[in-house]
């Protein structure tokens, strides 16, 4: 029996990536990383800023996401995200730009704990990339 399932990443502008030979996807879910294998139970969760790792027959790929929602159902994984960047051809400047705006955001006084947590996460991940 094959251990592969299909996945799709969509952002508002277009369908970003679509694969049907993935064996495992690790996503930075809100309450910790989740690795999704074939025949996982149907799940809906949302993402915090982090790295999505995709393991497939053709190799391993990593992406940075800002936020997102995942839905896994009938061996079909959909990831909706507003900002996604491929780590392979990532632009250092772009990263610094996001980092800077996150820092500014963090310095605002009117943010709540959850926002602060997300921003901290974001900065941490961005630093690890850079």
């Amino acid at each position, binding site marked *: 029996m094959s251990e592969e399932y299909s996945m799709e990443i969509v952002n508002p*502008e277009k*369908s970003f990536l679509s694969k049907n030979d993935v064996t495992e996807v690790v996503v930075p879910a809100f309450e910790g990383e989740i690795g999704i294998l074939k025949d996982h139970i149907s799940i809906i969760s949302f993402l915090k800023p982090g790295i999505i790792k995709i393991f497939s027959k053709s190799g391993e790929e990593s992406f940075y996401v800002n936020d997102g929602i995942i839905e896994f159902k009938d061996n079909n994984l959909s990831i909706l995200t507003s900002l996604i960047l491929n780590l392979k051809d990532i632009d250092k400047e772009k990263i610094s730009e996001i980092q800077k705006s996150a820092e500014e955001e963090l310095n605002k006084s009117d943010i709540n704990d959850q926002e602060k947590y997300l921003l901290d996460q974001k900065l941490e991940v961005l630093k690890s990339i850079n």
Partner: protein
Amino acid sequence: MASLDDLKKRISSVKSTQKITKAMKMVAAAKLRRAQESAEKGRPYSDKMNNIILNLSTGISDVDNAPKLLSGTGEDKIHLCVVMTSDRGLCGGFNTNIIKKAKLYFQKILDEGKTLKIITVGTKGYDQLKRLYGDNIIERISFKESKNVNYFDADKVGKIVIEKFDKKEFDVCAIFYNQFKNVITQIPQEQQIIPLKTSENEQNSSVDNYEFEPEEDEILSNLLPKNISTQIFKAMLENSASEQGSRMSAMDNATRNAGEMVDKLTIEYNRSRQAAITKELIEIISGAESL
């Protein structure tokens, strides 16, 4: 009758107008293709988003505690209308159609004695509404600088809407835009986004047992604001495709009309030229005869 010189001038001015409308038509056609493409590419995102929300909202256990964005404030007093129009003119009935649709809705709201608040997106909508509803317009937004429709612009509008909702500034929110059907037809749409309307007949689509992480309510309260931005983004994409389509057909008509005008003027020009020649000949002949 206009003199030959005048006619000549008019012909050349109509011809240069025709050149402009022709060029605008071509530009619109090129832009239309791109806008249509991105409208199509944007569809999976909003469809999936809708699907997830549908699955979530049917699975929600505690209806009373459901997020306000989904169930509404329980009142129906203040309506917020987001009217999305273009920033540029010369696109036929595009803006007028949206405004007409919106005005009908406004009138209904006001007749029922409810409060009306308006946000205009795009300068043309503001120009058309400010005379009648100037006091109702609480915000006007324009993305003249952005070259293409992008999600961050839509997100900005979405955030403004949500911020106002959190401050309890309105109960119901509707957006107005043109849905792109084809180049000739664009259908003005009115869509209620707060509280969210989930159509009944879709609810019997297979409801699965999902595992949620974290809880449904928390996911839902996170997802709904995003959905609003997504809906607005979708509307913006549809709008930009419609705008280009509408402009293309308007400019096509204008080019054709200019062509007809040139033909008519040319005939008139030739006639009066011949008349002048004949007149001269008669003068010469009758002059020669009298000798």
